[in-house]
């Protein structure tokens, strides 16, 4: 008897947090204190990983089969045409290179690069090292670090300790920031060349808002870094730089129009981002995955979970990190679909070549080109709603994982105006639907409700709602 312990990376976001997964009858998370990205520390999602890694079973139309049979059937249905290929970047670079070869012309990483200037691609894809965040003099947050990317918090606190000023452009005051500016008052934000802007970029990002943040930084000569929500978002974007990509919105549109009938998802649960009514229009939903998915797929190709895989992830900083497993079933399945076997070493070499390294060393960040981008015309407008429900995208939302978050936050004035009772609930109406939720009084701006959970009434990040007692 010897424990199976895997050195791995948390899939909760692209921060690159190292940890151990220990197989001991059940799965246990153990702290990998030597990890350069997180020093072994994990957020609430990282601590919940044993719940995420519920094993998947290969199936064809509800019937349990082998991986090989599922992959063969997937290949058959894909070959019928009208197929699209989706991977948000929840898997290794090696699998993503193979996936691109399988995908051909219809590849979707979720990101809407088409709507953004081409010369911003690198800036959006690779962030700056966390050590530079700690050394910044002025940090401007367009994210909520506590909920969205919690491991950035200690870097911000470290910067603050060294004298950095932290400004939040957000809907709620947060302890780490000494100044909070309402997003609608963003014109009051004073940036200089010493400022560092931290925003995020993901499949549900509003392209006009992204342009607006890029323009703010550009005009002030400030630096900007984008955090991302999937374990290998940076790898996915870097490796698909020259591929013809389609956005998530385009994919949804194509499925709704009926031009896409088969969707093949690699380590990506489409139900987290694609409306169920859209998914129901597909003839074939094929999911290749290492963990059980909440989407109802026609074919599931199930292989080892991420922590058992062999391969490389690239984090927000551009740091290449090796997974500690030996599993290549995912590549094998892709090989069956492609009709020819993929060799790991060849794929690994192409990754190294793409990012200009000779070996994967998690303690050395490769040198990336960080080209300046040109002037940007931004036309983002503040949303026009009387009361808005703000959905703060976070790992629990991206992965449909349960969390202790069944409430909304609102400010004291709103609670008083509605005569809400402590311990009571709040009625929220939108788009003909009505829900009743517990509430928490917090330093939130007027006319804003904040949630970190999907309630099912949302239409994007900000949803116009009516509220009552």
């Amino acid at each position: 008897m010897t424990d199976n312990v895997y050195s791995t990376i948390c899939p909760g976001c692209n921060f690159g947090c190292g940890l151990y997964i220990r197989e001991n009858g059940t799965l246990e998370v153990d702290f990998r204190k030597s990890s350069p990205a997180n020093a072994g520390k994990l957020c609430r999602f990282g601590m919940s990983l044993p719940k995420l890694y519920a094993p998947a079973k290969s199936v064809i139309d509800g019937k349990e089969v082998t991986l090989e049979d599922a992959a063969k059937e997937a290949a058959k249905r894909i070959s019928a045409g009208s197929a699209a290929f989706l991977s948000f970047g929840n898997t290794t670079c090696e699998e993503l290179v193979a996936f691109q070869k399988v995908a051909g012309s219809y590849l979707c990483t979720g990101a809407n690069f088409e709507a953004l200037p081409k010369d911003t691609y690198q800036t959006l894809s690779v962030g700056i090292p966390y050590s530079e965040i700690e050394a910044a003099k002025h940090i401007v947050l367009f994210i909520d670090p506590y909920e969205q990317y919690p491991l950035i918090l200690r870097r911000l606190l470290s910067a603050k300790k060294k004298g950095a000023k932290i400004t939040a452009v957000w809907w709620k005051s947060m302890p780490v920031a000494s100044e909070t500016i309402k997003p609608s008052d963003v014109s009051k934000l004073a940036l200089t060349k010493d400022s560092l802007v931290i925003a995020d970029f993901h499949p549900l990002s509003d392209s006009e808002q992204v342009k607006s943040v890029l323009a703010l930084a550009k005009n002030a000569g400030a630096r900007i870094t984008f955090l991302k929500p999937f374990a290998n978002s940076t790898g996915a974007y870097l490796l698909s730089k020259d591929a013809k990509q389609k956005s998530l919105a385009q994919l949804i549109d194509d499925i709704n129009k009926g031009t896409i009938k088969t969707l093949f998802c690699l380590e990506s649960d489409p139900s987290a981002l694609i409306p169920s009514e859209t998914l129901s229009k597909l003839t074939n939903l094929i999911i290749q995955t290492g963990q059980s998915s909440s989407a109802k797929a026609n074919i599931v190709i199930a292989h080892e979970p991420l922590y058992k895989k062999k391969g490389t992830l690239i984090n927000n900083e551009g740091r290449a990190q090796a997974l500690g497993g030996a599993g290549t079933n995912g590549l094998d399945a892709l090989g069956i679909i492609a009709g020819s076997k993929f060799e790991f070493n060849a794929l690994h070499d192409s990754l190294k070549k793409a990012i200009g390294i000779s070996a994967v060393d998690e303690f050395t960040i490769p040198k990336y080109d960080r080209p300046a981008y040109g002037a940007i015309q931004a036309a983002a407008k503040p949303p026009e709603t009387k009361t808005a429900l703000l959905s703060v995208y976070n790992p629990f939302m991206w992965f449909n994982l349960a969390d202790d978050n069944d409430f909304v936050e609102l400010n004291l004035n709103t609670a008083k105006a509605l005569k809400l009772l402590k311990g009571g609930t709040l009625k929220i109406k939108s788009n003909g639907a009505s829900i009743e939720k517990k509430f928490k009084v917090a330093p939130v701006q007027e006319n804003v409700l904040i949630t970190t959970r999907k309630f099912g009434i949302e239409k994007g990040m900000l949803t116009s709602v009516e509220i009552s007692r």
Partner: protein
Amino acid sequence: MQKGEMYVGWSTKDDVRKRGGSGGLVTSMLAAALEKKFVDAVVVLKKINEFEAVPIITSDVNEVLNSAGSLHSVPSNFAKLIANRNLKVALPAKGCDVRGIIEQGKRNAINLDNTFIVGLNCGGSMHPVVTREMLEVMYKIKPEDVHGEEIEKGKLIFETKDGKEHAITIDELEEKGYGRRESCRYCTIKVPNNSDIACGNWGVTGDLVGKATFVEINSEKGAKLLQNAVDAGYVQVQKPDEKGVAMRAKIKGVMEDLGKKWKGKVFVPIENGRLEYFRKELEHCIDCGACKTVCPTCSCGDVSKCTEYHFRGDAYKMSMYHLVRFLHLADACIGCGQCSDVCPADIPLTRLYRRFANPVQEQLKYEPGMDMQKPPYFEVKLNE
């Protein structure tokens, strides 16, 4: 062999003696326990590099013989690893590991009759990420070039692959914010006499320096464990000289006094605004629960008061989670530092827990994890 006896010993296996720390006695004693079916399994550190090793439970003798020994920059705690496993197990343990194991024993999560605790003298451990930075900033050497490390005469010494030694006093390192973890600085359990057998290099003299381990037997189990290793031909021992015994006692005394001084330095009384102090320290908490998961004295599992009374939708100035844990740990905290290590918001949790635990444990004259004594009832005095 019996309780109270002291020996100096070493592994009889050449490769273990050369590779292991201080003559490889601990590694060989654990391997012998496994080989002779004295135990079902052994806990060892599987070495990844000079700054990383992962604790594993194994019944493979070769895994034990090839294990890392102890590394100052691997600050893990083994108590939770063996809890609720129902194994007859032997394991190496720093003072804080031993205390965690005994506390788990009190909570019936570990059967101490089936647990052979090989205590390791410990002057403190270091966080691996801090150590890497320290090497670059203070020692001006690349972490990848480090071949080994040792603490001797108040200095932290790193040996590089070119055979050179690089030494800086621990005082100087800690003044600059490096060196040992904060909890290790004020820890006063330097020789773990709460273990079955306490091992270390303090007290090894003459030609045996660096090549042997000084051993003190603390229990009948400890005597059996060592005797088994000798009988199996894994370990050789001899009586220590008087000079060595005296030297060991002196180092122990000096280290304990240093720990007490650090305790005074860290725990400066909070004159006013005690509630505000705790509230401010905890304001960045993200409710990850890692501090509870890692705590070697907590055996509550998923359903516990601190989590059941807590709802993230509550708007209390301080969460029920922390309030319950402060209360629970007042008589249970062993000051191991694991909670501070894993906190994603870098909250100095051990320091906060000790602010409650120090006065309670001093008033009750009760030190958790030192023996099987159960904690006395304690009262909370409210300010009028």
